[in-house]
């Protein structure tokens, strides 16, 4: 079976990136490279919309499958090229399409080594899309790890501050997590009775996936250990306290568009993995199920939410502040997943749906926030909050959309963040009232740090000893139409999902129902 749409969607950015890198030459090629690369992300966006819309919700299951059975047809590692989307991955594919386009548009002003920059950015998009559509564990792992190379280059070459240190830290953290995941994958694969790498069952192709086979199988390594291996990988990537420390560095030093991609979709690879693998595989394993540890997950989630929130308030660098807020927000994803400890199906699916939706909304909201920081920084050349103030008069558009991101982040009703968080609380409260109750203060903290920052940067009077000279201040300009395209592209989903959540929640629900059996 080979539908082809997904394969094209996934590999189009990489193909364009590589072709451009190889063939674009000459004095004025930079401008063409920008246009071609942006064009590629726009086409990819259209393709992801086609994937999202084309998914038949009545039919459910895995759709748009591309399958080549004999990719690595040897006994020691029987791996197939198997990609497809279901309700869980389709919205994330769409999210990657949106953010990939926003990131490419937001890179308009990159001047340094343009050809390489767009090549890496496009390769990054391909690897993220690949993670979301892979249904073969080895393929999943390869995409999951491959993303490190573009990220390493993007942060280290085009970053600011201490880019090389941050890039290295990012890679080492993720690689450690990935290494553990690899052991987990192999342990599942070599187990008698499993001996497959298919992540889901696809009846029409005769594929029986790990979730079914692993139930009751005698794993060669204790199931709790395998679960831990996967969990470490996802906890690093999400990131959860106490393995989050790479995130603020990577974000602070990365160029704007890369921050957008990192917060917007790269962290979601971990959330997706939690749902698809940690939850999907470990419900009926022998001697261990995910329900056994849901309580611990709730506790770690609560710590991440509160710890992340408190640290965030203290930040004086705008970008670092938003980076830490991600720790807090991704803690909510973990909290939603912890709802699986509930015995009642409706509460646990509410929490899980909330977690999935939180991934989507955090992608757009935080992506928008980073974009706005980038626009502001381009003009003021500082991100140090005490140096700023009174920017509202000079750049009202930037201020407004910064506020949109801020309100989305603190969970204002009618914006998408509210829907996700309320679903998580509803799902998790009956199971883990204490952890949920504590985490609810995360919302208060979020209100504190976002509003306080917006107030200091945009509204308050200019500080007595401003970091930007009067001359610079007087010449500040607002965002122009080129800047506004990616902003609108990210702001629109925040409103749409806030007002009409079922656009994506119906979809996620199909996916979640299939994962929870």
């Amino acid at each position, binding site marked *: 079976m080979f539908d082809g749409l997904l394969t094209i969607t996934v590999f189009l950015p990489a193909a364009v990136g590589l072709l451009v890198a190889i063939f674009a030459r000459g004095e004025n090629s930079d401008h063409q490279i920008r246009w071609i690369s942006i064009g590629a992300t726009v086409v990819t966006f259209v393709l992801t919309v086609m994937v999202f819309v084309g998914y038949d919700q009545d039919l459910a299951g895995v759709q748009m499958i591309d399958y080549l059975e004999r990719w*690595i*047809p*040897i*006994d*020691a*590692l029987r791996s197939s090229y198997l990609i497809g989307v279901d309700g869980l991955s389709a919205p994330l594919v769409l999210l990657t399409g949106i953010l990939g386009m926003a990131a490419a548009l937001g890179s308009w002003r990159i001047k340094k080594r343009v050809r390489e920059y767009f090549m890496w950015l496009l390769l990054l998009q391909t690897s993220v899309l690949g993670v979301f559509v892979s249904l073969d564990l*080895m393929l999943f*792992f*390869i995409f999951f*790890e*491959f993303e*490190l*190379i573009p990220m*390493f*280059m993007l942060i*280290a*070459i085009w970053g600011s501050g201490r880019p*090389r240190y941050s890039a*290295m830290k990012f*890679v*080492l953290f993720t*690689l*450690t997590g990935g*290494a*553990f995941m*690899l*052991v987990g994958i*192999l*342990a599942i*694969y*070599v*187990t*008698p*009775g*499993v*001996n497959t790498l298919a992540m889901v069952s696809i009846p029409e192709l005769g594929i029986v996936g790990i979730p079914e086979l692993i139930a009751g199988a005698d794993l*060669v*390594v204790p199931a709790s*250990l395998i679960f831990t291996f996967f969990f470490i990988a996802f906890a690093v990537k999400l990131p959860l306290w106490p393995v989050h420390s790479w995130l603020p560095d990577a974000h602070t030093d990365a160029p704007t568009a890369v921050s957008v991609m990192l917060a917007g979709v790269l962290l979601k690879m971990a959330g997706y993995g939690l749902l698809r693998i940690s939850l999907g595989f470990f419900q009926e394993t022998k001697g261990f199920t995910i329900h056994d540890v849901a309580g611990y997950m709730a506790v770690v989630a609560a710590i991440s939410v509160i710890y992340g929130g408190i640290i965030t308030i203290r930040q004086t660098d705008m970008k670092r502040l938003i980076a830490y807020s991600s720790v807090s927000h991704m803690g909510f994803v973990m909290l939603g997943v912890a709802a699986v400890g509930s015995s009642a199906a409706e509460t646990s699916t509410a929490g899980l749906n909330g977690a999935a939706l939180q991934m989507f909304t955090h992608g757009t909201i935080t992506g928008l926030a980073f974009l706005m920081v980038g626009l502001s920084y381009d003009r003021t050349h500082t991100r140090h909050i005490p140096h700023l103030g009174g920017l509202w008069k000079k750049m009202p558009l930037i201020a407004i959309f910064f506020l949109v991101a801020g309100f989305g982040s603190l969970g204002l009703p009618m914006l998408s963040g509210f829907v996700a968080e309320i679903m998580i609380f509803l799902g998790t409260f009956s199971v883990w009232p204490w952890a949920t109750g504590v985490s609810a203060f995360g919302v208060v903290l979020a209100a504190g740090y976002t509003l306080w920052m917006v107030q200091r940067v945009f509204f308050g009077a200019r500080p007595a000893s401003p970091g930007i000279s009067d001359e610079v201040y007087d010449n500040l300009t607002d965002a122009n139409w080129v800047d506004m395209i990616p902003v609108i592209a990210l702001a629109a989903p925040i409103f749409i999902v806030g007002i009409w959540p079922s656009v994506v929640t119906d979809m996620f629900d199909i996916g979640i129902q299939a994962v929870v059996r």
Partner: protein
Amino acid sequence: MTAQDFWVLSPEIAMAVLALVVISVDLVTRSMAKVSTVAFIGLAVPVILTLNLWNGWFGDPATGPALFDTFEADRFSLFFKFILLTVTAGTILASAKYIASDRMKDYGGEFVSLVLLSVTGMMILVSATELITIYVALELTALPVVALAAIHRSKQGVEAGTKFFVLSAISSALLLYGFAYIYGYTGSTNLHVIMERLAVLPTQPGVPFGSYAVLLSVIMIVAGFGFKMAVVPWQMWVPDVYQGAPTPVAAFLSVASKAAAFAVIMRIMYVAFGDANLMQDWSGLFAILAAVTMTLGNTLALSQSNIKRLLGYSTIAQAGYILVGLASVPANQVGATSAGAGPQGVLYYLAGYAFTNLAVFFAVIAITSRTNDDSIAGLNGLLKRSPLLAGLLVFGLLSLLGMPPTVGFMTKVVVFGAALNANLTWLAVIGVVNTVIAAYYYLRVIRAIVFEDAVDESKFSADKPILVAAGLAAIGAGVFGLAPFLMLDLAEKALSIVPAMITG
């Protein structure tokens, strides 16, 4: 000798003759270009003869025991002969310009023929099924390398040569000691006979390997070959020799010598000590060696500032990963993958490693021969100075690191999977943790190449032959990474020596 003996031994004979031809050509023409050309084209003969033994082109390839049961050209040995011949071809290509340089041109012919002689020894070594033959082949392998390491007659070169000579002598002594014990205990030097005798000799319960004599002999044998495999704690010579010896020699040593040593240790272990109980015992020994080797090799590599020393430590670490495959014996199988996953992984790993490491070393040779600077800082800004070489080197390093989807990643996956299959979860975990440690120093080199600014911005490119050699090696690494089954199928066919593979 019978006609069959000649057939079975034909690649080795061709190799030895080639060495003599090369030195004669050198005598007549004194043109290093001709020497290299003759050697490279002449390699076609042993390659064709080896292919003949594998495929049986010229009639039935009677590859069974020959030369009074001391030698066997089975597919296992042929697999390694292909690797060795590939490495030789690469080495000759890569050293073409080197031997034509001013300080080398008087010894160029000797250089090439010494390489060929050493390879002849290795080819005999991987086929030998008898302890004395193994020993003699080993000496033939090592002595030319001593001369190669010291061929510059510089202070460093002589030091490297002396070091290598002394340590080879010690390792040979250990080996002979081990051989003597096993001969004394079983009364035979033939590996097959040793296995038969061990099966009937009485065993002491509670003693590893059933008796102290066998235990001692196995430890001595492993120690002896440990030097050649560059396994901790017998690794001390590696960085010094790699740094001191000419880089083409280091490249040759790091791949060919290692592959041959792994081949012979596999054969001894699987053929002479292939009983299921014995297998479990030596599996434990190799598992510990693997853990120590990986960890120490990687940790020591972290602080290196010389690229050749760093690669020296990196090859030690790589030997550790290969040992993981060696420790994953069929007798311990708990998983569902085929029982031969461990030995198959060793073969795949060695083949993938050969291509990758050659690409890296050749790129380094090409670069340092232009910059005359073998510190890591000397690689700064290489991407701007020589994009092609920089690309090759980065690709090779990513593969050594094990970044998907390179061959380095695939080989590690197969080897670690085999470890889990053989109930060695702890070893697999240590292995993957090590790949992360290793990432740090490989990335440090990549960082220098890609991000740092060069002091000297002048552009340069490499000589054609070495570029071709490095490019082909990289292409090999790429192909076997994207299409692992090509190599794994061959490796599976080559598992004839593993007992579980013969019966099952």
